[in-house]
């Protein structure tokens, strides 16, 4: 069995790089992040439905924005964080970092999917088409493909360490490409549509709308952390099933 030398960090945080410690820490944190997500969601939805006014141009349907924008933003944010931790795992050969990156991927992919779906449901009543190939939606679709590629590559490799590292390289390549992809899609869109307005541009936002959206974004963030923590616990158990600490936890 391989022991890892862990470089000491301040406040003794380095001990959480060890699987059993991280498992217990994650278990303690999940209820906090879950509750925070729920409370923020309740508050955000209240603001969004009962405080934010009716939009001048779009009426009530704009309220989809309170879940559409948080989902879209989270999908991008999670990808960046995922690539960061995958990179750390590659650079310092730490297993925990790579496992954390893997834990985040499905939630990020789900966020991208929800952004696309809610965007389509918003687009139909607001601009007449479920899908309009505009820059932001198309980029989000490609982001979803990048997530799926990450998960597919990881799933196709049997050896967990090779899988972690291969997916890590892919994530880093993806994160470098993402701005290039976004700008090229934007260019593609403007040149093909001429002077048409960006279809998913939010309506000119009243302050209350922005507040509601911000609260919902925080809620989605807390939720994503909670699910990632839960998933990393599953991953830890799955990978460490032969170790004594995991077996002690499963029994007790």
């Amino acid at each position, binding site marked *: 069995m391989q022991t890892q030398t862990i470089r000491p960090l301040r406040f003794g945080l380095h001990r959480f790089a060890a699987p059993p410690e991280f498992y217990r820490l994650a278990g303690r944190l999940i209820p906090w992040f879950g509750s925070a997500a729920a409370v923020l969601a309740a508050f955000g939805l209240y603001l969004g439905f009962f405080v934010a006014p009716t939009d001048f141009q779009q009426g009530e349907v704009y309220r989809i924005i309170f879940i559409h924008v948080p989902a879209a933003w989270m999908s991008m944010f999670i990808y960046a964080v995922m690539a960061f931790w995958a990179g750390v795992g*590659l650079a310092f050969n730490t297993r925990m970092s790579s496992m954390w990156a893997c834990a985040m991927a499905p939630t990020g992919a789900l966020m991208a999917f929800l952004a696309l779906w809610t965007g389509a449901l918003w687009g139909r009543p607001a601009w007449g088409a479920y899908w309009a190939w505009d820059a932001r939606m198309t980029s989000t679709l*490609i982001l979803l*493909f*990048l997530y*799926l*590629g990450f998960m*597919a*590559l990881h799933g*196709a*490799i049997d050896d967990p360490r*090779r899988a972690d*590292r*291969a997916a890590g*390289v*892919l994530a*880093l*390549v*993806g994160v*470098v*490409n993402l701005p*290039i*992809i976004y*700008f*090229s*899609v934007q*260019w*593609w869109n403007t*040149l093909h549509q001429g002077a048409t307005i960006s279809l998913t541009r939010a309506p000119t936002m009243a302050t209350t709308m922005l507040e509601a959206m911000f609260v919902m974004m925080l809620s989605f963030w807390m939720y994503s952390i909670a699910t990632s923590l839960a998933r990393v616990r599953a991953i830890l158990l799955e990978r460490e099933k032969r170790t004594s600490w995991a077996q002690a936890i499963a029994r007790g």
Partner: protein
Amino acid sequence: MIQALLAVVRRDLLLAMRQRGDVFNVLMFFVIVVTMFPLGVGPDKDTLRLIAPGVVWVAALLSAILSLGRLFALDYADGTLEQIMLSGQPLSLTVLGKIAAHWLITGAPITVMSVVLAMVFDMAVGPGATLVASLLLGTPCLSLIGAVGAALTLGLRGAGVLVTLLVLPLYVPVLICGALAVERSAGGLSPAPGLMVLAALSLGATALAPWAIGAALRVSVE
């Protein structure tokens, strides 16, 4: 250093020439895929002229991905790749040499073939020339990015389809810029912006991809 690079290129070209069938197949794939579109869409000249840039470019993407199978897999299968990696030769150099050879047997023939295809789609001289130029500038980038995918999926079952999933999203900027340059040319505008971006993408990939490919090879070959 240049000599080492040329040696790698020469070796790969020799190996490819011994299996000329593989090389020819990729080119045939390119032509057949392009031919499918008029069959599916109808022979109206104006429609075809409109879709030509996109069709040729998508076919080029798919052909590039198809050809990646022989980039590293053959050397990996018989242990040569491991030897090369252990030999102490800088991996980036070897990688660049292999990709240069790969481009010579895939990207270059595709670029040449596109001259014929431009005529098939009844493109005017300007857009046709832009198409050829865009492929010339863009296919190196396709080989470089594709090599990352090939290196990551070495020896995996289902590697062929998996590589496609991984690499196509990364190809999107090249596709967009290539097709856009030709369309601008067809519309009377200068294709220079698109072509310059393509050149920049290929140069950037030449600078950065070898790192990623080396890392991926080290991961896959252990």
